[in-house]
């Protein structure tokens, strides 16, 4: 059942981050977690581990930020196959364009429209 798998795998990825935050002596901020996950996603995707996880868990693997890294890596790889070296420059961001644009547009509009709560 894809819904249960999404819940469990997504939850486990968050547990990994929680353990990193709670058990390490470094000051692991949310920024570090997000940077770590996106980079790990790129690497796991490049060595062929992340796609099977996506096939298995659906949104459980695509919604965590490692899924964003996976998208960037696969975009770059696909584009290199069709257009060569130039693809390494264009493919990654192109495949993640919708998410990036949505985050900037909605983020901007909300930041303009709302006031922080005290």
């Amino acid at each position, binding site marked *: 059942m894809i819904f249960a798998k999404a819940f469990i795998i997504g939850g486990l990825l968050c547990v990994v981050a929680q*353990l990193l935050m709670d058990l390490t002596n470094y000051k692991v901020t949310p920024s570090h*977690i997000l940077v770590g996950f*996106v980079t790990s996603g790129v690497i796991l995707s490049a060595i062929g581990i992340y796609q099977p996880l996506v096939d298995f868990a659906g949104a459980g693997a695509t919604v965590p930020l*490692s899924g964003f890294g996976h998208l960037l890596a696969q975009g770059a790889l696909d584009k290199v196959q069709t257009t060569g070296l130039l693809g390494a420059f264009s493919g990654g961001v192109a495949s993640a364009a919708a998410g990036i644009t949505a985050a900037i547009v909605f983020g901007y509009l909300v930041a303009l429209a709302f006031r922080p*709560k005290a």
Partner: protein
Amino acid sequence: MVGVKDSQPAEIQNRQYKLLVDRVKPRPTLARNVFWAFVVGGSICLVGQFISVFFSSLGLNLEETGAATASTLVFLAAVLTGLGYYDEITKLGGAGGIVPITGFANAMVSPAMEYKTEGLVMGVGAKLFTVAGPVLVYGIVAAWLVGLIYYLVL
């Protein structure tokens, strides 16, 4: 070092007391943090799965479904952040609220909103990228490297 002496100022005594407590106190919070990270993070992914099934049922292909799902989650997270509710999610779920793409959206909106008074350019415009900047830098550089290596090995 951590012995609390009366002769020292209260501030230092407090700090030493805290050190002492940190050292001897067990970590009952760890299990709770992990539990809630799992539940909250899992739930956000579950919502994502529902949204993705919905878009896919409209006839969108795999790529379009992914883009539409990510955009919808980002929209919801941005609005919840604006209304002040996303902070509650992160307070409860810790990493469960940070790791999903909704946490990324939250990390963009929060400082942008906070520093609005510094202006539209250096306030909203710049602070949107406090966290998104590093994420994009590392994500894009890593993906570019992967593409480059693939090209060289190909």
